[in-house]
């Protein structure tokens, strides 16, 4: 009896299908816009603009893998970005401003975790509410002002977080443009890969995503792990906020807005299950590459920017249908049954 018992090839080679899609898309853009995609500068630009998205999406990989959702991270980008910017610019606190920015994100994440785990509000509603609250706080406290961090590149904070260590060393221009935040992001993401796949916490996250009640009887402290989960997300969103603010040398109140759908789409394109219980960080990173590349690629290929969201949405939808088809045989069957069956009234019980 040849039963298909071990994980499929797709599941074993983490992120394989999405890597193939990425390579195909890259080849397509190289063909359509060789003047852009066969030059190194587009890639160094990606390295400076993608890190915030990758950090957010990696955090969301844990959240979605645990069967939860966090909608509040754009507000954390606004709020923690404000905390950092005001302390950095107005009070010239340097690294203390970085620490305070991170702490504010961790606090917001912790509060999200308590709301979800201890008070029992579904994460969708809890983080929708906190999203409004913290975005509102950022607006109130900043008075709607933006902060231009002129001269920030003179500071050690800027040089160490988003600096260009090889610039002016006489190396090729594109090497001089390599940004340090891509290195920090890579270190954080690799570390989080080990946390998800090799650490007790990551295992608990996936079991919780699989089933809260099974996790409880197996001795997992579900509430505590959920609080940790949202706290981690808050910290990552704050890190993204600091990188973003420093890279732009400017803080503005709605700088997080564009990330909500792109980050969630990156995670799901990457192959993390919408239903929880399965998550892939490799897939998420390639999902981010794809989302980021579509934007640059379409414009370079001659389409207007208005097409970007449309195509991203289409890729997002296609990816989800693909994963539903490949990885969730039971759900697929139920889905197909729903499609083919005519709606009928069911008697009330």
């Amino acid at each position, binding site marked *: *009896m*040849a*039963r*298909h*018992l*071990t*994980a499929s090839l797709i599941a074993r080679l983490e992120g394989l299908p999405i890597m193939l899609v990425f390579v195909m898309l890259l080849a397509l853009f190289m063909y359509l816009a060789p003047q852009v995609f066969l030059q190194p500068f587009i890639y160094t630009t990606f390295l400076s603009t993608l890190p915030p998205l990758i950090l957010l999406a990696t955090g969301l990989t844990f959240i979605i893998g645990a069967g939860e959702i966090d909608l509040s991270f754009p507000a954390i980008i606004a709020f923690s970005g404000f905390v950092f910017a005001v302390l950095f610019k107005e009070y010239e606190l340097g690294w203390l401003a970085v620490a305070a920015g991170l702490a504010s994100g961790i606090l917001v994440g912790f509060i999200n975790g308590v709301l979800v785990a201890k008070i029992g509000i579904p994460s969708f509603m809890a983080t929708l509410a906190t999203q409004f609250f913290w975005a509102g706080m950022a607006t109130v406290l900043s008075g709607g002002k933006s902060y231009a961090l002129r001269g920030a590149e003179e500071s050690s904070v800027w040089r160490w977080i988003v600096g260009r260590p090889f610039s002016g060393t006489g190396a090729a221009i594109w090497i001089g443009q390599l940004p340090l935040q891509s290195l920090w992001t890579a270190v954080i993401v690799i570390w989080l890969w*080990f946390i998800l796949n*090799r*650490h*007790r*916490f990551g*295992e*608990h996250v*996936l*079991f919780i995503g*699989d*089933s809260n*009640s*099974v*996790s*409880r*009887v*197996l*001795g*997992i*402290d579900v509430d505590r792990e959920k609080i940790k989960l949202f706290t981690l997300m808050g910290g990552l969103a704050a890190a993204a906020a600091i990188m973003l603010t420093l890279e732009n040398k400017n803080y503005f109140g709605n700088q997080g807005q564009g990330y909500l759908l792109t980050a969630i789409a990156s995670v799901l394109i990457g192959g993390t*299950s919408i239903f929880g*219980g*399965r998550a892939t960080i490799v897939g998420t990173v390639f999902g981010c590459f794809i989302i980021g590349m579509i934007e640059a690629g379409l414009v370079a290929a001659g389409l207007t920017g208005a097409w970007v969201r449309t195509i991203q949405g289409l890729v997002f939808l296609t990816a989800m249908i693909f994963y539903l088809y490949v990885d969730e045989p*039971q759900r697929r069957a139920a889905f197909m049954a729903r499609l083919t069956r005519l709606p009928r009234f069911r008697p009330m019980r």
Partner: protein
Amino acid sequence: MNNNPASQTGADAQDFTSIVRLEGVQKFFGPVQALRDIDLAIGRNEIVGLIGDNGAGKSTLIKVMTGVLEPTAGRIYVRDREVDLADYSVRMAHDLSIETVYQDRSLAEKQPLWRNFFVGRQITNRFGFIDVRAEKAIAEDILKRAIGFRGAGITVDSTVANLSGGERQGIAIGRAMHYNADLIILDEPTVALAVKEVRKVLDFVRRIKDSGRAAIYIEHNLAHVHDVADRLIVLDRGRIVAEIAPKDMSVMDLTEFLIALQQDHIG
């Protein structure tokens, strides 16, 4: 954190009369009283059948006993020592050598078997990173020796979702055996199993007793439980209403008895 199952079997505490004893346990869910004045002691080397209608409180009783739910009032003793109910948890029950096999809530569907064996008590270094190789090696051993899954195409990397109901129970029971539990609680382990698989599970229940351990066996099928239990506890609306020795009552009489109980409800 480094869990060595063999070292925590309670071999250090051989002087006790009952593995678990409940005294005056009450459990409320809001205004609903699920358990009333439960006094129950589980001795060593016995199989206790727990029977009663749906909603009689069987599942609540074992959840209280295993640290999943905190009782509203009452005391719990493990090996004659009272446990602090504020601290009592599933993990603590595991440490006290009490294992539970639930009908459908023992394994996480999308996770590989090796993770299911160790989750909640992983073999880790002191930073919490899992020793995957060690866990897989032990899981392999449990699969082959304790459960007897040889050549069935099941490996430690198989995901639970691909296993049959009987295989799942085998995995859950094998896990309980591996951790050398003194008390194994089985919550309707034969529900939705094929006849051949039921036999395997019943054989296992007998083996628990042969190895000097105790079991609590919750079962709807009276013939099954009558067959293996040393004594039967009958629950009705949260109360223990009878204790029966199977040798004193045939399956037929037992069935009549339970039907009569239900008619009391209606009448």
